[in-house]
């Protein structure tokens, strides 16, 4: 916490490789990322993903108190929308004043706790594909007000103004899923990314406090060899880049063979591994830090993660049961379960609450359900990474990873819980998609008007309004009678 670092802040961020396990062909390694004033991040690890500057459902005080996360990823596209009535306004975030405790505008605007690092990229992870392509000097981004052009200049200015701890310069990406770009397109992606990194470095003030993680686009090594050589031969010796941001970690073996001098740089993966199995594979390839979109998705589906690197011993010696990666708390067997969400978990949700409460909150569509699930699921991931680091230290990573692969199901179960409203800026439905949530609280039969007493329209699905008429399943007379609320009047005449 000394002020010494202030003299040359970009230098203040350090990454130290503590142990590289070059055994069994694994490139997995232990490292430590440190920046004065922030929590030190032991790697392998993950950064939490934010939406509009917040970890979904978690207020900044709880990020500080109840998440272990040492870093948060933010997307510039979440901050630069131009509202229809105010097309010309400058995004307010650029005018953020700073304070002693929040000396960097991005931190200050988003009220990110000072102990947590910020990483800024242009687009959310995963990004919504844009119907417009990128141009030589701009990319297409998706804001809450729709698609918008972001010029390379504006992005560079944003980084200079907002002073994130880490910034990822623009890469020319398509975001059209697993479609392999044609070789012509792939080549252009590499060339533009190369060119944009050059102009980014030229535009960034020389005393910038931001560490630059060079983007590595998801194109084969031979196509971007020229760009990668420039990173290794020109920019690294000048200390212009402090890390690598990989859109596809599968390039790592080729990259590290060709450019050994890039080895000391931290490797951040932006590839969105869909399960912990993929995480383990990417760690073996040499990834240090992850961003994990599945975390927010599983929480929104009412799932609590239940896996750990070392699976619990089988209940009977003969059983070879495959374990689920998560449990669906919306299922009825949780209704009276006073156990933690997963065994031995010490997170806030598991120590202060129990499965029955989360089950109740999910069925009552209370927003706290997602808050507590987010805390739990982030905690399970933090523990998973801590166990991975311990296994690297004791040289047991490879066998533990193999045991994990044998013990757990390949995918997450489908959560049946009601989700929060799908917010337009993070979710694009394709034609023919059904409703994500079933329609809430349909009208009471025989009651002429559709509008419900005391409820503002459109607030139901957001979990904002407490429903007053019970839903079909829980509102039947038999259910009401059973739940002790009232009794069925046998023999009474029905109108």
């Amino acid at each position: 916490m000394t002020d010494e670092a202030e003299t040359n802040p970009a230098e203040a961020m350090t990454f130290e490789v503590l142990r590289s396990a070059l055994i069994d062909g694994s490139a997995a390694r232990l490292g430590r990322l440190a920046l004065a004033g922030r929590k030190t991040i032991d790697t392998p690890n993950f950064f939490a993903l934010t939406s509009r500057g917040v970890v979904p459902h978690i207020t900044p005080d709880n990020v500080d108190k109840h998440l272990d996360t040492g870093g948060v990823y933010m997307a510039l596209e979440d901050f630069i929308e131009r509202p229809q009535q105010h097309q010309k306004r400058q995004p307010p975030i650029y005018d953020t004043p700073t304070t002693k405790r929040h000396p960097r505008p991005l931190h200050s605007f988003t009220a990110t706790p000072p102990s947590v690092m910020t990483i800024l990229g242009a687009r959310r992870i995963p990004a919504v594909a844009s119907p417009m392509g990128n141009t030589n000097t701009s990319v297409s981004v998706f804001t809450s007000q729709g698609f918008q052009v972001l010029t390379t200049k504006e992005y560079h200015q944003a980084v200079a103004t907002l002073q994130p701890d880490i910034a990822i310069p623009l890469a020319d990406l398509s975001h059209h899923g697993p479609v392999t770009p044609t070789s012509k397109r792939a080549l252009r992606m590499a060339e533009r990314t190369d060119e944009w990194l050059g102009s980014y470095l030229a535009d960034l003030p020389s005393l910038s406090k931001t560490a630059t993680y060079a983007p590595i686009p998801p194109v084969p090594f031979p196509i971007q060899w020229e760009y990668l050589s420039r990173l290794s031969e020109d920019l690294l010796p000048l200390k212009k880049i402090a890390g690598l941001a990989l859109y596809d970690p599968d390039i790592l073996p080729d990259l590290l063979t060709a450019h050994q001098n890039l080895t000391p740089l931290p490797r951040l993966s932006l590839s969105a591994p869909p399960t912990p199995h993929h995480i383990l594979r990417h760690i073996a390839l040499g990834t240090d830090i992850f961003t994990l979109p599945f975390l927010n998705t599983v929480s929104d589906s009412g799932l609590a993660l239940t896996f750990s690197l070392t699976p619990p011993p089988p209940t009977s010696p003969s059983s070879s049961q495959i374990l689920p990666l998560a449990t669906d708390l919306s299922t009825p067997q949780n209704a009276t379960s006073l156990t933690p969400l997963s065994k031995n978990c010490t997170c806030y949700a598991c120590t202060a609450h129990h499965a029955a409460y989360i089950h109740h909150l999910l069925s009552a569509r209370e927003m706290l359900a997602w808050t507590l699930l987010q805390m739990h699921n982030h905690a399970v991931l933090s523990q998973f990474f801590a166990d991975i680091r311990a296994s690297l230290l004791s040289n047991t990573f490879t066998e533990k990873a193999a045991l994990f692969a044998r013990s757990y199901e390949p995918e997450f179960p489908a959560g049946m819980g009601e989700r929060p409203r799908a917010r337009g800026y993070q979710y694009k439905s394709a034609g023919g998609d059904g409703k994500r949530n079933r329609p809430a609280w349909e009208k009471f039969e025989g009651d002429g008007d559709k509008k419900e007493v005391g409820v503002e329209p459109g607030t139901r699905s957001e979990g904002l309004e407490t429903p007053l008429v019970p839903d079909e399943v829980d509102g039947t007379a038999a259910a009401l009678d059973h739940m002790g609320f009232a009794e069925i009047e046998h023999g009474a005449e029905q109108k």
Partner: protein
Amino acid sequence: MWAVKRMASTSASSAALTFELVAKCSTTRARASVMTLPHGPVNLPMFMPVATQASLKGLTPEQLEGTGCRLCLNNTYHLGLKPGQEVLDAVGGAHKLQGWNHNILTDSGGFQMVSLLKLATVTEEGVRFLSPHDGTPMLLTPEHSISLQNSIGSDIIMQLDDVLVTTSPDKVRMREAMERSVRWLDRCIAAHKNPDSQNLFCIIQGGLDLDMRRECCKEMVARDTPGIAIGGLSGGEAKDDFCRVVGACNQLLPELKPRYVMGIGYPEDLVVSVALGADMFDCVWPTRTARFGNAITKDGMLNLKREKYAADFGPIEDGCGCPCCRPIDEEGSMGITRAFVHHNAAKETVAAHLLTMHNVWYQLNLMREAREAIIADRFPAFVREFFGRLYPDGQGYPSWAVDALQGVGIDLNS
């Protein structure tokens, strides 16, 4: 049944509640007291936030505790539907269900039935209604309500009453409702299984007819419940009428029992009701309005969704001590700005959570400040200051407030 032991002239106890009068305003009828319930003491006057379905709209119980709240509401109607009596019994009550180790108050569930289900009719036996989905005739009785509240285990439970909108012109029906509420209180008392750990409060009815209210007070007070609520208000009646009823009832109620005015929450209503001698209040408005982007402040309501707050980097309210607004460089402060709330209002649940925290803090703090003022015997000055901030040009004070306060010795225009 509710033998009041007079320990001293300023305190009274029943099996599960001790009421200690700390100070009385020398001008108005305002009073400061401590009410000790099974889950700890609470300072009166107080505002009680409403955690309808055993959750205060996105706040963790830990965050709710951080606002200073030690007594919150749950709704019997909603908990009866979800999770239901069976689950509540299995889990061991609402405190265990929601991980809340402080006090809980529950309503009777009757209000929601009557106001929301158009086909409900009230008979001597109870509230008759048709199940909304299958149309089966059903009956909710005082015994059901108490049994459910016993399962919930709340520290304060409310009798089932026959609620009628106060503006109803039907005097005969109003009298029937008042008298029936008294009879139902007797049935509630008889059905109440845990008088040693849960406090049953009666509810004064009688619409806007002061004589009927007085008659009801007499009957209810004779039944000696540990606390007394004034019900049927905040249903669209004129504010003058509201004040007259609260004032008239409070004058007839025993000094050493808590007085709870149900369903009110606007800051002006709270301050005036305190001046009229009321102690406890509840309302969903502060938390509901938070979810629509509104912040309650000493200078009035701010809708932070408005464009003018997009680049306003001040705290939600200057000088507020809530975790959102405390000075940014202070420990424990989040450094939330209006711009940040604007950025996420109606877009991320976090913005709603932050405003909920702020608004609950505001309401609790307003009552804390009123209490301190009563103890220091400067409550009239507090009231004038409060209204002065809301109406900075000294003009346009609402006449109902001017009149009501005049009646207890405060002249707002002086």
